[in-house]
């Protein structure tokens, strides 16, 4: 008898411990903070701006320095200004190219052509895919290590991301889509509670598996006829909008979603 009680007591304690351990707030690892990653704000221009690899950058700087020296000795300074040797020559070609530039600049009759040639040359160099590929290959080694580190961080963050909501841009995209689909019934009394909460079950592509009005009982309450009209309009909006604009990743996060339709703001205007 006493043995059974002891076993029961022990197992109960074990049960409580396991339950407590499984709570999500305890599952967090406050000590194991993920490393801080600096965020760089990038303005995207019309043309893709491919960054130079560190080694190529050094080479370009060297070429620039050499050019400066050569031009200052042999060419008039004005003409130098027009030439922008930002190209990325391969190491063994660099001297020849510099010589070519130098020679061209020495002929005053071909100044314009020279400039054109140089600009075309620049273009060639900048958009020479083989060169870029080579540079990227070189940079791959450097970036690979960083990516590995970043990958680790991302995976770690992903675990925590399961508990997060949608990002602002994801939420805005979804809101904007539903705003366009929701025809608000204009006859609603705006001094009433005009909030309709709908819980959705979604497929990964954003289409709806199931929609459920959370305050369903209110639909049949006397004097709440307007609520039924409002709830139906919200359901129509969801059906009209589907598939919803949901994020492409993190399905587990948003496979269940609650939309709170509130018409008060619009009707009070």
């Amino acid at each position: 008898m006493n043995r059974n009680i002891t076993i029961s007591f022990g197992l109960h304690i074990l049960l409580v411990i396991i339950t407590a351990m499984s709570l999500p707030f305890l599952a967090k690892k406050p000590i194991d903070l993920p490393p801080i990653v600096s965020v760089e704000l990038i303005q995207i221009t019309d043309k893709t701006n491919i960054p130079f690899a560190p080694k190529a950058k050094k080479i370009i700087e060297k070429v620039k320095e050499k050019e400066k020296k050569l031009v200052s000795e042999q060419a008039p300074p004005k003409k130098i200004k027009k030439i922008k040797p930002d190209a990325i020559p391969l190491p063994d070609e660099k001297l020849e190219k510099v010589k070519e530039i130098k020679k061209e600049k020495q002929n005053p009759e071909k100044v314009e052509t020279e400039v054109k040639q140089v600009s075309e040359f620049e273009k060639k160099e900048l958009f020479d895919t083989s060169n870029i590929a080579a540079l990227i290959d070189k940079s791959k080694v450097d970036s690979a290590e960083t990516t590995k580190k970043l990958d680790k961080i991302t995976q770690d963050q992903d675990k925590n991301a399961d508990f997060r909501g949608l990002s602002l841009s994801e939420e805005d995209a979804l809101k904007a889509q539903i705003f366009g689909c929701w025809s608000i019934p204009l006859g609603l009394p705006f001094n009433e509670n005009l909030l309709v909460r709908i819980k959705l079950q979604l497929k990964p592509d954003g289409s709806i598996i199931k929609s459920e009005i959370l305050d369903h009982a209110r639909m049949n309450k006397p004097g709440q006829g307007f609520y039924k009209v409002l709830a139906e309009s919200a359901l129509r909006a969801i059906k009209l909008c589907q598939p919803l604009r949901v994020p492409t990743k993190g399905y587990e996060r948003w496979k269940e979603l609650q939309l709170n339709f509130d018409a008060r703001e619009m009707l009070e205007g």
Partner: protein
Amino acid sequence: MLFRYIFIILVLLPIKVFALIEVDITRGNLNPLPVAISPLSIDENSKEGFKKILKVSNLGIEISTVVENNLRQTGLFNPLNKDAFLQKPEIANLKPRFEDWNLIKAQALITGKVTLVDDKLRVEFRLWDILAGKEMMALAFTTVPNNWRRVGHIITDKVYQRLTGEKGYFDTRIIYVAEEGPKTKRIKKLAIMDQDGFNNKFLTFGNELVLTPRFSPTNQMVTYLSYFRNLPRVYLLDIETGTQEVVGDFPGMTFAPRFSPDGKKIIMSFAKDGNSDIYTMDLENRIVERITNHPSIDTSPSFSPDGKYITFNSDRSKYQQIYVMKSNGKDVKRISFGNGLYGTPVWSPRGDLIAFTKLHKGKFYIGVMRPDGTGERLLTENFYQEAPSWSPNGRVLIFYRETKTNSKGEGFSAKLWSIDLTGYNEKLVETITDASDPSWSSLLSD
């Protein structure tokens, strides 16, 4: 025993908990709702029967057209072109193929059936939610065949209420002053018509000048101003019987009459010796009560829907402005403070707004404001327009507008117009003659 505990432990093993994401939708669009109104189906026997009785070739199409026009007039619905319909009315009435209606972007569908049963008109109609793929409403009406337009209006009211959440205003009438002849020698008669301009009838012969007719809440009585033997007085007319009587025995001019919300009293202005004050008369015991007592011109009184307050216009602050007071005449408060002159205040049946006419810099405006004077909104502007009257749901105003005459004195006209509270949906209300001073009835089928 041990297995039982192990089972419980396994069940309670750590389960990953996801917080439910909530997204607040606080905005929507106010675009008209696309509605498909399928012609009501009708069998051949009924078709022939109605052709003989009503001289109408296809009553099903006619009734659906009434519904379509009503819904379009509101500005809240966009009835879709019938040419785009893929399903025939007789099949759609039984079971709509929602995919077909979805294809033409309809969000709601109206179907129905018309039959002639024992010389009576029977109309069934159904409202469908296309996106949800379910029936929203189904009703049937039986009436005399001549009432077929009214059936169309009642169907519209039901659809409107189901889709917007507020009562409709289609099964209603408008009483107005029909005007004919040149501006200097106008013949004015009382006339009544359906809200869409059909079934027009004249109630007086035009021997006396008539002005400002107003419906009672029961719709059977009308009060108006008539210049009988050149003495302007307030009269009461029973539409059903045609009998009329003078309201009260006032030793002077009475004008601007209006019923109280319960229909038991008439409120009006009484003018004597250049002063005009507001009076009420109880229609049961004929007791007259003075409401205002001020040496200024107090006129155009209108009760609040609960009967507790009265709005009126007065020049007691030098210029004509709108005031609100208790129904016993106490606690008079000025509510209009904008530039210009304010007049003809009318309390909305919903109680939330007061409509008015405003004159500012030579132009007339129809506008609304809250009973405390805040939130003034001017809905429409014109050369000359006045006398707003509310639809029974407080969503639309009807008023009249006059046009300028040219240098030869020609080109004058007076027409009825309606505008909804958004200020965008302004429509001309067709009348067979010129028209002024409209008054909207309450719902006939309420």
